[in-house]
Structure formats: structure tokens, C-alpha cells
């Protein structure tokens, strides 16, 4: 069935349209969105299996041959990311039931979450550069609404900044596509790669590569384009924050990974050098922020920036090990960031504050929550049996093999500070004597269910890395060797 790879886009889209009609009936909204996310998860898992068996799946929309129509391409990387996205949004939707509040639910909340999934899954699956722009806009439009829904003062204020930054970066994206179109005369990603290969990587192509880095760096919050992220991600409620932190920036990272491995791999000296420097500064900025703050949300937000730096460092090395590690770390980071945001969402719903100095001694009343947070912390820092280990190991190994000791050491040292920043939360918030308020009516048991699902998945992802690595290496093979992708799309 060749239409399989469109299902992770189509199912949320149809669901979102249906949910618009049932916005006032919260119960139907909840059930429909849960069922459709389960369908999305199942279809994306079937897709992963199909790609594992038969290689890259492509679908020419409307049966127009490859460079002329829009082609959807699902290789292992995008299928794995689509699966992760579907699982995370399922958990966030489940988390929303008891935490987001009836007012928001009545105002199209579930429909907008589905639209966000359409955008993210579409951006991961598309094989056309302008179609990527359109899916970015679908995703961003949904994220604007999710950020502002509820209309608190802080949300209004931060939405203005978030929208302004993203309008500017979208304009830059359009400009970059225009430049690229004038040079290569095509929009299909595989065909662009072929054309760049024919003309060689001239100066103008390098300029376009840097422009793409600026565009996707603005989406994915790399140094020096990360300035909007700490404020904007602070504003929305926990499940929305988890969706944003896990998905939105990773789409930018995926786009950098895709463009830099598919288009601009001929003259890597200049572009990848810049990526290398920026990724290392991004890591440093992230850890500085993470250890500076005494606020739960800010600590996790700066950890997003650190993780993006680590993934991009792996991309900048462009060796088999480091790309493997980056893909491994990307999926791990999506899972664990979503889990951490949901965990601090639970903590905030109990204590009513995100300030770390205002409460302590949670472990007596909430031992399960405490140990879950502990496992998530160790997993994020990369302690061996857990999920963050193998990715970072491969990235550091790739760095050392390339004789880049500075970069590899920064990656390794960053783990220490990441561990410190979250252990600070654990020690100050969970240990110690009873301090601060406790909201006894917080539905902790219910909220822990989706969070535990994510953490169990992260543990499984780490323990079963032997089994998963066959899929990961299939994903990174396409990135190392773009001709596989091109042959699959253009069918030569």
C-alpha cells in the first residue's frame, strides 16, 4: 500500500477537521483525539517496519513524476521521528485531560494539537523544499495559537515576541528558497541535490547553505539565534511546553541535518566549520543557562539548547559514528525532554510554583514522582543503561576519531553540568524538610500515567539500544550516502 506514508499526516488532519465541529463537547474531543493519535502511532510503526523491509518509501502526489510534482519521501530517519512525534503527542494529549483546564479545551485545544502534529509529521516526511516551508507554517501557526490560548498576560506578551521572530525567519526561508530556485531551477530536494552535484558547490551555494543555517537555526534555537526561546517556552502550560520543547526545535535540527547531508556536502570545509563553532557555543550557552537559574522551567529550557548543540556537533563532524550518534541522541532527546516537561508540570501543579527555593521535601509524599524524576535526570545526563548514553558516546567517539579533542571534551563536560543542573532540582525539591504549599487536589496519579509511559520508553530505548541500532544505522546510512535518497526519489 503506497499511501501508507501519508497516513501520519492525513489522520491528524482529518481528526483536526472533525474536532472543530465538536469543540463544545469536551468528552468527544478527548476520545476522538486519543483514538486518532493511537491510529497515528500504529500507522507510523507499520511505516517503520515497511521501510526496514523494503527501503525508502516515496509517494508522488497526484502521480506526477518526481521532480515535477510534490514527492513525499519517508526514509528511516523521518519515519522514526514521525513515530516519536506521534508517541509524544499522544502522551501530551493524555496529560492535557486533567491539567489544561476546561476553558482551553473548549476553545479548539485538541484540534490545534492535531494541526501541530500535521505540521511536524509533514515537515519530517516531505521531499520538497517549498512544501517543507508550508508544513513549517502549519506547525508554527498551530504553535502560535497553542502559545496564546488562554490569554494570560505573560502568554500575550511572549506570543508577540515568538510570532515576530518566526515571521522574520519564515520570510528568510522564502528568500532562501527563491535564491536556491534561481540557482538550480527546481524545488524537489533530490533534484536540487543532483543539480548542485552537477554544477559543483560554487560560492553562491555556500551562501545559500549559510542562509539555510540561519533560517533553521532560528527555528531550532542555536547560538546566536536562541534568544527568543527561553521567554517563549516559559509562557504556556505544561503539556504545550512539552510539545514545544520536544518537537518544534527538533524540526529545525532535522532540517539542518537534511539540508546539510543532502544538498551541501561537497564543500564541507567552510559550512561545517561554522556549524562546528556554533554548535559548541550553543552547548556552552545552554549549560550556563541551566546552572544559572533556580527555576524549574528555565533549567529544562536551557537543557533543550544544550541538547541541540550536541546534536549539531554530531552533524558538523559528518562521519558515520557521529551521524549515528546524532540520530540516536535526537530521538532520545525528544522523548526525555517531553517527559521532563511533563514531570515539572506535575511538580508545578502540586507546589503551585516553579521556583526551586520555594519548596522542598516532595519525596515523602510523592516517592514515585521523585524516582521517576531521578531516572529522567540520569537518562538526560547519559548514564550507561539509560537512553542518553549511546548517542553521546557515539558523538564523542566521532569527535575523538576526527582528532577534535576540544569539541569532544566540551560534549563530555556538558553532561556533567546537565547532571548538576537537574540534580539541583532533585536535591532541593525532593529532599530536605517539608517546605512550601501542597495542592492536595492535584491529579498526580492520572498525570503520572503518560509521563511514566515516556520514561519507560526512554529506559527501553537505552536498554534495547542493540535492537534499535539496526534502525538507527539504516537511518544514518541515507544521511552519509545521499545517492540512496536520490535514487529512491528520482527512480533512475
Amino acid at each position, binding site marked *: 500500500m503506497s499511501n501508507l506514508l501519508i497516513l501520519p499526516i492525513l489522520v491528524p488532519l482529518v481528526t483536526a477537521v472533525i474536532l472543530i465541529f465538536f469543540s463544545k463537547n469536551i468528552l468527544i474531543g478527548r476520545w476522538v483525539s486519543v483514538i486518532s493519535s493511537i491510529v497515528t502511532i500504529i500507522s507510523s510503526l507499520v511505516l517503520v517496519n515497511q521501510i526496514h523491509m523494503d527501503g525508502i518509501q516515496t509517494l508522488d502526489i497526484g502521480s506526477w513524476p518526481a521532480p515535477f510534482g510534490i514527492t513525499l519521501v519517508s526514509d528511516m530517519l523521518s519515519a522514526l521521528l514521525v513515530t516519536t512525534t506521534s508517541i509524544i503527542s499522544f502522551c501530551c494529549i493524555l496529560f492535557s485531560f486533567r491539567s489544561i483546564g476546561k476553558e482551553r479545551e473548549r476553545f479548539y485545544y485538541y484540534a490545534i494539537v492535531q494541526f501541530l502534529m500535521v505540521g511536524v509529521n509533514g515537515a519530517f516526511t516531505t521531499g520538497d523544499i517549498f512544501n517543507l516551508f508550508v508544513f513549517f507554517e502549519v506547525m508554527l501557526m498551530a504553535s502560535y495559537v497553542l502559545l496564546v490560548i488562554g490569554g494570560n498576560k505573560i502568554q*500575550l*506578551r511572549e506570543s508577540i515576541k515568538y510570532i515576530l521572530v518566526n515571521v522574520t525567519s519564515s520570510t528568510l526561508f522564502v528568500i532562501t528558497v527563491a535564491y536556491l530556485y534561481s540557482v538550480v531551477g527546481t524545488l524537489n530536494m533530490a533534484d536540487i541535490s543532483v543539480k548542485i552535484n552537477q554544477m559543483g558547490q560554487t560560492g553562491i551555494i555556500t551562501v545559500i547553505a549559510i542562509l539555510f543555517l540561519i533560517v533553521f537555526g532560528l527555528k531550532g534555537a542555536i547560538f546566536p539565534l536562541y534568544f527568543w526561546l527561553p521567554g517563549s517556552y516559559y509562557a504556556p502550560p505544561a503539556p504545550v511546553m512539552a510539545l514545544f520543547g520536544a518537537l518544534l526545535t527538533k524540526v529545525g535540527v532535522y532540517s539542518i541535518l537534511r539540508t546539510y547531508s543532502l544538498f551541501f556536502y561537497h564543500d564541507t570545509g567552510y559550512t561545517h566549520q561554522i556549524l562546528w563553532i556554533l554548535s559548541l557555543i550553543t552547548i556552552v550557552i545552554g549549560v550556563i543557562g541551566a546552572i544559572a537559574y533556580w*527555576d524549574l522551567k528555565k533549567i529544562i529550557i536551557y537543557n533543550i539548547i544544550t541538547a541541540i548543540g550536541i546534536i549539531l556537533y554530531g552533524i558538523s563532524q559528518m562521519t558515520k559514528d557521529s551521524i549515528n550518534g546524532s540520530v540516536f541522541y535526537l530521538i532520545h532527546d525528544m522523548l526525555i525532554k517531553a517527559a521532563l516537561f511533563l514531570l515539572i508540570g506535575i511538580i508545578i501543579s502540586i507546589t503551585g510554583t516553579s521556583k526551586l527555593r520555594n519548596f522542598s521535601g516532595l519525596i515523602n509524599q510523592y516517592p514515585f514522582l521523585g524516582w521517576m524524576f531521578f531516572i529522567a535526570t540520569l537518562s538526560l545526563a547519559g548514564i550507561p543503561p539509560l537512553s542518553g548514553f549511546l548517542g553521546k558516546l557515539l558523538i564523542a567517539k566521532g569527535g575523538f576519531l576526527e582528532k577534535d579533542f576540544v569539541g569532544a571534551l566540551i560534549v563530555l563536560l556538558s553532561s556533567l553540568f546537565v547532571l548538576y543542573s537537574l540534580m539541583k532540582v532533585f536535591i532541593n525539591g525532593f529532599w530536605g524538610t517539608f517546605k512550601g504549599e501542597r495542592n492536595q487536589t492535584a491529579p498526580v496519579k492520572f498525570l503520572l500515567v503518560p509521563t511514566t509511559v515516556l520514561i519507560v520508553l526512554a529506559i527501553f530505548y537505552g536498554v534495547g539500544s542493540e535492537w534499535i541500532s539496526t534502525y538507527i544505522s539504516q537511518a544514518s546510512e541515507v544521511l552519509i550516502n545521499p545517492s540512496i535518497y536520490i535514487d529512491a526519489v528520482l527512480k533512475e
Partner: protein
Amino acid sequence: MEILMAIVIGILFTSGVYLILSKSLLRIIIGTGLLSHGAHLLILTMGGLKRGAVPILGEDGSKYTDPVPQALILTAIVISFGVTAFFLVLAYRAYQELGTDNVDKLRGSEGNE
């Protein structure tokens, strides 16, 4: 012709960036409008401004202008319409709730201690 267009687009971008860096929210939104005008004109220019018939097959001409950039612009225009409409309503709401349109007064200090 392309040179002239490039200069005009450059002026549009300059004015857009200047307006975005100002303090009033409405000037910022006007700036984003100018930026998207510039971007759309840039797609048209970069697609080539060679003479040819309009891209309708009934028109008899040996050459047609490139139809792809026009489709891209049409898509980009409606997207920026949607975003701008949302942004304007957001600015209106923010003015009602926060009582200011000065961006300097929209600072937050959450999480800082």
C-alpha cells in the same frame, strides 16, 4: 530589469528591518508586511523576468513566463495574510490586556531571581 527589482527589494527590506527594530508594535507589524512584500517580489524576480505570454495555455505565444514562482508567491501570500491577521488581533488583545504598545514595556522577568 532584474537589477532595478533587486534595488527596490533591497529598499523594501531596509525599511522593513528599520520598522521592526522600532518600539511601537504597529510599526513592527507594518515592518513585517514590508518584509513579506520584499520576499514575494524576490521570488518573482529570482524566477526570471524574461518577456513571455501569461501562463495560460489558451494564449498563443511561443514563450510563457515561469508559472512556478507565481504559484509559490500565491501560497506565500495567503500564509502571510493568515499570520498577519493573527498578529494584528494579538496586538489588539495585548493592547487591551497590557495597556501598552511599547515593546520596551513588554519585558518579562519570570524565572530571574
